[in-house]
């Protein structure tokens, strides 16, 4: 086993090489394909939701074929709508936004960018993927059990999630499967996180000091630390919830509940306890989703602005500040939950202070563009889109973070708009930027440029068309997770907005077909890529595309430069590879 590092030969059998592989690159691709499968399902579910919201009573015989059990009458029933809400949220947050940027790109590029042959613990890495996949399959199984998928939302607030089927459909076996799936996901994330941290700290190549790490590595590293500390708390909550459901304990279920005319035997539990445990995980999770996107954006912006990233140290400090503060603000999800109004004030102040490092990052990105020579490649378009969306989604947080403004805004569409932009769409833009940027390295071929640009335009405009009007719904008081507006007089006039959003969502979703087509077509038919098609500086651009099994061969690279040496005055070219000899920095 000691020799494993020295002679790093690719296993010969197909199974060991592509299925149960311990190669971080194969595992990274496995994660990416898993995320692609998950995001496809997640988008399909959101289409069903949007159709229900725009035309609540419409029959969809064709769509019913996919869910014959839940859509028996051909309509999307309110309970099925809530199942969709739950599954869409869970799939997107866990199996897309956590899986793709961290499990996918992180696995593939972190070892390469630090100059290592593989992750520190390849077997753990493989396990991490397979456990994630198991979690995903368990979650999907919830659609096919009696009662269907849970209707308690991705936050699974107790006691709704804790008292079983009698509180509503899907809260029986479906909810159990949901908990098991999340528990598996927690365990998988821990295995992955350990690898990321150890690899970053211990396997950096000669000359790769911490201050020469690309910002992507800093982001993955911080994300891994967050995952390592946040997921166990969700796991603890999940175990307690499962015990309340199946073993008759009373951690979250208070005494004397009457559900469907039955007095429940539980006593003394605290529903707020679940919320505290959930959001102690849940808020860092937001940053787990978005930090890698920030890292990729910085990386791509610098490359195509042909400028060093502005304020490298401030960027690293901001990543850390966001990560740290991320652990101290979970209470802002609970201002109106009945928790102490005094702690709400503390949480509110801490929450708005997160705006500061976030603003620093935005300013630094803008300053990176100042006096740049911008090349509008597809990854650059998505990175610029990320900045725009990050600003838009982040600023509404200044409203939600204030206790008194959260009173009218809490649990309305304003919140839905806010977190979709800042955590969902921004992260997805990061993923797209990363995909278009690294595709040549991963597959040795370029993605089609025209298709990529068309994909960007439709997605960028579509996303704004979907989510900006959602803010207005929230301001008008529309609570989230409502299957229709018909029940309330004050909601009925908002229906045209729902129709508009649905149409925008359909167009945006259709635009994603362009991406998938481009992706798979380019794998086989794309133009061959050179080693360094973007003329970028970091280590992944010094090795063949796609990289060989052991990345760097027997000779590990030696690093002499920082990660973003673009347009150095007096240098021969407008970029200096990290491995270029020290003399390349002449000025």
């Amino acid at each position, binding site marked *: 086993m000691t020799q494993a590092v020295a002679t790093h030969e690719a296993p010969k059998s197909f199974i060991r090489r592509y299925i149960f592989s311990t190669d971080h690159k194969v595992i990274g691709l496995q994660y990416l394909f898993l995320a692609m499968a998950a995001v496809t399902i997640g988008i399909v579910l959101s289409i069903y939701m949007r159709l229900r919201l725009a035309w609540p009573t419409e029959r969809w015989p064709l769509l019913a074929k996919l869910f014959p059990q839940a859509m028996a009458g051909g309509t999307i029933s309110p309970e099925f709508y809530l199942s969709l809400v739950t599954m869409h949220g869970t799939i997107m947050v866990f199996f897309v936004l956590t899986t793709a940027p961290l499990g996918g790109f992180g696995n593939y590029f972190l070892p390469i960018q630090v100059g290592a042959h593989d992750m520190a613990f390849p077997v753990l890495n493989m396990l991490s993927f397979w456990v994630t996949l198991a979690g995903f399959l368990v979650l999907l199984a919830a659609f096919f059990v009696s009662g269907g998928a849970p209707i308690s939302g991705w936050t699974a607030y107790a006691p709704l999630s804790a008292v079983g089927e009698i509180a509503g459909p899907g809260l029986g076996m479906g909810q159990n499967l949901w908990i098991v799936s999340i528990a598996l996901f927690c365990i998988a994330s821990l295995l992955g996180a350990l690898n990321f941290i150890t690899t970053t700290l211990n396997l950096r190549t000669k000359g790769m000091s911490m201050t020469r790490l690309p910002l992507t590595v800093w982001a993955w590293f911080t994300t891994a630390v967050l995952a390592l500390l946040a997921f166990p708390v969700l796991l603890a909550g999940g175990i307690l919830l499962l015990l309340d459901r199946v073993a008759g304990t009373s951690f979250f279920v208070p005494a004397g509940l009457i559900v469907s005319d039955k007095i429940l035997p539980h006593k003394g539990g605290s*529903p707020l306890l679940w919320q505290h445990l959930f959001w102690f995980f849940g808020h860092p999770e937001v940053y787990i989703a978005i930090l890698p996107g920030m890292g990729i954006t910085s990386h791509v912006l610098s490359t195509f602005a042909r400028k060093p990233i502005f304020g490298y140290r401030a960027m690293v400090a901001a990543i850390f500040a966001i990560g740290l503060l991320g652990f101290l603000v979970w209470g802002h999800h609970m201002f*109106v939950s009945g928790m102490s109004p005094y702690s709400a004030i503390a949480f509110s102040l801490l929450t708005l202070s997160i705006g500061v490092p976030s603003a620093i990052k935005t300013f630094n990105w803008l300053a990176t563009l100042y006096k740049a020579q911008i090349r509008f490649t597809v990854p650059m378009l998505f990175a610029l889109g990320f900045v725009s969306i990050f600003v838009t989604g982040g600023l509404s947080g200044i409203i939600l973070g204030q206790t008194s403004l959260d009173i009218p805004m809490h649990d309305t569409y304003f919140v839905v708009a806010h977190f979709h932009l800042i955590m969902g769409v921004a992260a997805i833009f990061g993923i797209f930027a990363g995909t278009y940027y690294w595709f040549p390295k991963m597959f040795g071929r370029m993605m089609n440029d025209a298709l990529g640009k068309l994909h960007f335009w439709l997605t960028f405009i579509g996303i704004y068309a979907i989510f900006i009007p959602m803010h207005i719904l929230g301001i008008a008081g529309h609570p989230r997770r409502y299957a229709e507006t018909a029940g309330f007089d004050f909601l009925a006039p908002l229906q045209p907005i729902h129709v508009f959003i649905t149409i925008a969502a359909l167009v945006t979703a259709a635009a994603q077909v362009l991406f998938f087509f481009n992706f798979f077509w380019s794998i086989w038919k794309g133009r061959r890529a050179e080693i360094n098609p973007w003329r970028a500086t970091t280590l992944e651009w010094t090795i063949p595309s796609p990289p060989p099994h052991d990345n760097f061969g027997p000779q590990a690279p030696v690093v002499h430069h920082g990660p973003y040496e673009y347009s150095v005055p007096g240098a021969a070219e407008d970029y200096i590879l990290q491995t270029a000899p020290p003399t390349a920095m002449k000025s």
Partner: protein
Amino acid sequence: MGFALALIIWAITLATVVLFAGRFWWFPEAISEHGPSIDRQFMLTLTIIGIAFVLAQATLGFFIIRYRRRGEERASYWHESRRLEILWTTVTAVVFLSLAVLGQRVWAKLHLNAPPPGALQVEVTAQQFVWNIRYPGPDGKFGRTRTELINDVDNPVGLDFTDPAARDDIVTVNQMAIPVNRDIHVILRSKDVIHSFWVPPLRMKQDAVPGLAINIHFKAVKTGQFEIACAELCGLSHHRMRGFLSVLPEPEFEAWLRQRASQ
């Protein structure tokens, strides 16, 4: 490409500003005493973040056009400015934290103060898809309730009639009336799962948590008929959990209460 992107960003920014400034759909008119302060704080914040939004997007668009690639010219090797970094860090910190502090004023008034003495007490007990409203009756005291006595047909909150204080309690389903210009002290409970008491014109939202009695207080200053919505996912008919709030002049309220008591 740079022009197109900048134009799109600016167009989106403009559309967003028009949508927010035009107020084609907006808050319902505030009817509570604290409502206008929340609206003012909202507008203040919205104005500030609106300015930040426009500035950031406009700058982004401008840089995209101004610094698009021109021939083989090199970009400027400029990547640090201690002064700028300190400046924008300080400015954002001051602005954000001032907003955070300002945002606590209404909150403190609503939640850090006890309900004023003499406030009318109303108990709201949520259950899956129904709001049960209870008034203490002429004696001003809520009677004892017991879980075992709860019966959705004629005793939804489980009044224990062996307690004299319970006999004059008035219970209604989904119908809540309050007098205008008087402090109201609502005690929120839930029988089953978490619900949230949400009356948009009141600018009041508070979760009803099983096992807890949560106290809130407010004062309505305008009369009218309003809807009570549930704002916390509570099960399959969450979107139909509708109650009615009538804000009445004091005499009409008294009459309403008497009429309910006689039923």
